[in-house]
Every structure is written in C-alpha cells, then in structure tokens.
C-alpha cells in the first residue's frame, strides 16, 4: 500500500449524521473496523470531533444536511448522507459511490385527506408547499409546469396544513403514521431515500488509493450478512 510509504499520512475526516441514522450506522462501522473513542457515545458530550482506533481517521457528528456541506467543501473527506440531502444541494463537489442500504424511507408530497378528494392537479399553476427541501420541491413541480412557492420549515411539517400555513407538504415518510395522525395523505412519491457513502471530489482525485480502499471496505461491510 503506497499510503504506508508516505512519510506522514494526512488526516482523514468522516462526517456522520446525528440521530436515527447514526444508530443504524453503528453495526456497519463495527464491520468496517472503525471504533470511535468512548466520548462519541455520550449524547451530552460537548465534543464535535472524535478520535477513532485508527490514528489518521477522525469522526465529526453533525446535522444530516451539514454532512453534505462539510464534505462538499472538503472539510470532511468522507460522509454518510441520504440521497434526499444530496439531491437538495446537488453539489458538484460530491460523489456518492455507495448505497449503504440503511435509513430507508421516501420523500413524498402529502396533503389533507379532504383536499385530495376534490383537488385536480391538472389545473395548478402555483402551489404553496411547506418543506425542508425547497430545491427538490421547486424542481419537482417545475418539471410539470407548476411554480412551487416553498415555505422553508425545519421540522413539524405535518402541522402546516392543519394550521392553514399551506395545503401541501413535501417531507420524508417512512411508515406514514405521522401523516395519518395529522389527517394527511401521501399523494405522490418524489424519490426513494437511502443513506449513501459520500466522498469529496478533490479528495477522490488526489488521494485515489486511500479513498478507493475505504469505499471498498464499506462496500464489503454493506454486503456482508
């Protein structure tokens, strides 16, 4: 391995999303052979960057949208992000070489059950949509000639139609239970979502052997039983 012949191996930073996905990721990290320092599992820790059992590899734990940004800017070299986040930013500096098959859900349009019975999408020219994904939403509606006026929210999208903020939302759906509980109906799936291993483009080009080795290691761990 040429990496060993280099006098000093440069640091490699892996960005991981906080929360639900991280729990699903832990078994994968075990199989890949990355053991974070104990502080990583302390939810109250004020640390943002963590050491691992591998001297050159450190981890950062950030919000899922920020994983893509850290990696696109080269502040982290590798990361784990859903294709919802990747599509929203559409950074040219991001590669997503591997589907990790975790964090499965879908990004969908939902509206109140009552509205879905009378609404005729053919007649739309403008729609107002509450979402965390204004870019994907705009692109999705623009593709069929409808201007989406997006209201950017960071959570609790399901509240928006009930309180009259707007009629429609675009949000992640897994079981659909939250939608049902709020009187909403999923009317259209925009995309299926899974978590991807993402790589910074310049790092991929300038440290090819090292990053290929990581991608392969993750690939093997993903396909392991």
């Amino acid at each position, binding site marked *: 391995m040429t990496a060993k012949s280099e006098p000093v191996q*440069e*640091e*490699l*930073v892996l960005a991981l999303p906080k929360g639900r996905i991280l729990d699903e990721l832990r078994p994968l990290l075990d199989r890949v052979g990355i053991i974070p320092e104990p502080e990583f599992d302390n939810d109250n820790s004020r640390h943002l960057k963590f050491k691992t059992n591998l001297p050159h590899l450190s981890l950062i734990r950030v919000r899922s949208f920020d994983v893509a*940004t850290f990696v*696109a*800017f*080269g*502040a*982290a*070299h590798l990361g784990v992000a859903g294709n919802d986040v*990747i599509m929203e930013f559409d*950074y*040219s*500096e*991001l*590669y*997503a*070489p*591997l*589907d990790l098959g975790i964090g499965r859900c879908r990004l969908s349009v939902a509206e109140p059950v009552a509205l879905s019975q009378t609404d005729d999408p053919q007649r739309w020219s403008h729609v107002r949509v509450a979402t965390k994904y204004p870019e994907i939403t705009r692109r999705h509606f623009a593709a069929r000639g409808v201007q989406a006026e997006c209201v950017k929210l960071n959570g609790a999208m399901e509240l928006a139609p009930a309180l009259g903020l707007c009629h429609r939302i675009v949000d992640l759906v897994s079981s659909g239970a939250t939608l049902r509980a709020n009187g909403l109906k999923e009317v259209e799936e925009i995309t299926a979502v899974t978590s*991807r291993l993402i*790589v*910074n483009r*310049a*790092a*991929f*080009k*300038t*440290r*090819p*052997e090292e990053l*290929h080795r990581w991608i392969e290691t993750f690939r093997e761990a993903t396909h392991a039983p």
Partner: protein
Amino acid sequence: MSVPLHQTRHRALLPVGLPDVLPPDAGHEAALMERLMASFASHGYQRVKPPLLEFTDSLLAGIGADTTLSHQTFRVLDPQSGMMMGIRPDFTPQVARIAGSRLSQAPRPLRLAYCGQVLRVASSQIQPERQIDQVGVELIGASQPEADAEIILLAANSLAGLGIISLSVDLCMPTLVPTLCQAWGLDPDTTERLRQALDRKDAAGVAAVGGEPALVLGRLMAAAGLADGALETLEAMPLPAAAEPDRQHLAQVVRLVRHAAPHLMVTLDLVEYRGFEYQDGVSFTLFSRGRGGESGSGLELGNGGRYRAGATQDIRGEKDIPGEPATGFTLYANAVVKTAPPPEARSQVYLPHGTDPQKGEQLRADGWVTLAGLALLAEAEAKAEAIRLGCGFIVTSRDARPVKLADDGSAKTSTP
C-alpha cells in the same frame, strides 16, 4: 421578511463574489500571473488581449446560446450601437474567434496565451467568486496526442515553476460515455439518467440501468484512480468499435505525459463529464493536493481540454462551421495564490527628506524597496516615522549602508 439591502448598506459593502484584493495579496497575485505568462511565452505562446465586452452575437456564437456559460454571461445594452453586448464569462471563445478571423492566415499550430478577468452572473457557495482572474493558453490547429501532452505538461511545469510541488492532474475523456451510449443505441432518457448517476459516481444508479451498459460503465467508473492502473483496465475492456479512437488517443496521451513527467501524479477518470460540456477530447483538471494548513482535500487550480475552435451554429441551430481542432487550459489566479509559496519579503528602507536621489537609485538597483520621506524631519523623528511606515532600515548621512532600525533605538548597518 428581511430588511432590503439598500436600507442597510454600508459604503464598503460589495456585491457577492466581487471582493477588493489588498496588499500584499494583490501584488503577489500579479507577480504569479506574470511568471506564468513568462513560462507560456518561453514555450512560444504569444499573448492576445481581447476586449472585456463584445456583441453577444459573436461572443455566444462560440459558447452556444443555451449553455451554462451563456446563462453565466452578464449582458448590457450598448447605448452607442443599440446592440446587446456580453461581458466575457470565459476567454476561450474570444481567443478562438481571433484565431478563426484575424489570425486565420497565421501559420498552424497557433499558440496563444491570455491573462485577465472574466465575469459570471451567479456564484455558488463553494465557488463564491464572480470576477475570476484567469491565465491560460490555447493551442489551435493541432489534433495529435502530442498537442494534448504539450498542453498538460505546460500547465504542470508552469505551476511547478511557482513552487507548487504537490500537483496532481486528473485526465478524462468526456466524449467516451456519449460515444458508448450512442453505440449501444440507448434512448435520451436512459442516457440522461446514466449521465446524472455517473456525475455523482453513483454505482447503484448506474447498475439500475442494467445490461451491458451498466456492466461496462460500472467498471469504467470503478477504474478511476492512478493513471497506469486505470489505463490497464480501459485497454483490457471489450468496447464497441466506435469508442476505439477515443481509447487510443487517451492511451497515447497518458503514455506521453507519464514518459515526460514520471514523477507527476496523474489520475484517470473515464466517466468524468460535469464541467467538460464543451470538450470533445482529452481533458483534464489540475489539483493541488492538500491546501497549506487546512484539510487535505485538495484544491482545483484550473482545467483544460480539447475542443473545436470557431465551431459555430447558425440561427437555425445547424452546425455551419466545423472549426479547427484545438486544446488549451485555464488557471484560476485565486486558487493558484492560495497554493503557491508566498514571495520572499523585500527589505524596505526609509529615505529621509533631502536624501541624494542617486542614493535611492542605487539602493533600488541593489534590490531594496525605498520609501521617500515627504517632509523634513529631525533624525529621531525620521527614525520614528520610518518605523511607523513599516521600514526595517533608514538611510543616514553618516553611514554608507542603510542602518537597521530596532524598536529600542539601537541601530546596525545591514544589506537587503
């Protein structure tokens, strides 16, 4: 609703992507650009200077009316002619226009260089600059692999000449994937889906297309990496005959570059396309590995590749003029400055009011930077003034050499 910008505006506020560059950075940048231009000139590339604006008809003829670059073009109405003008978003179409018109009778291959600013409508978070200083060359009228190799090596050697040692060149062949898709008879929708998946190096997205295309493109994508290994994979692949010219040309260029610069890091990406929409042959991106002090992710210093110079479309969109084979590259000054080692600081010496002009002349000839005192001051005051202006030395009537200034007032003579 946020407060409108015009209500909060400070006089020093500048538009997004249009910064002031101050000393010493502005001087450093200019010096680096001059050294690059000198390097190009020493390889026979002569400088041209197209205007900042020209009629959109001619500017966009070389760019294409509905392309990324045309959407990046600032447009203004020329009050004098009543015609629309565009501010150049790139030099290459202008240089190609010159080569195809005023220099159409100049002997080929034609080697031209340029240095100056371009302006783009939109910036992104990652690339916030809208006014970009570019320096580059075009080699027009040559289609041999030797021409591609000359361009790649000129870029690498010129950057190495600035002291940038951790250079890496990523080669690609943007026509390879479209050629393959056409040979397989894929429909436009599938081709577009593949294109998007390949742009993101999304192995699952490529596999989803299925069949031979997914298999071949998946392997080509996975082969990205150090040139020797990637080339081996490419040469061993069974490909449709239509891809043969691309494959052979690329292989030849890789060999020429590897032979001429065995220590240069060269990588190969067989499915790269994004950013190379105008290219029709071997293309490349120049990276600096790691940016001093920051993360080790690398920084893009410039890019280049093969295209048709002077190929234009008429109003009906039919390709009228095929143009000439050409290749070239552009380097971004702002990225080069971040990567190149800073210049050696020159010693500044204060010339008190009334110093013999010949003395100053001699010091400058010896490499000093002189700052002339504009008001007559007593000796102690002159020393304080020199220190205030950042001079390390002062000329006195007693000493032949400039005297070193120290904050404690003690002084020693020295040389620059």
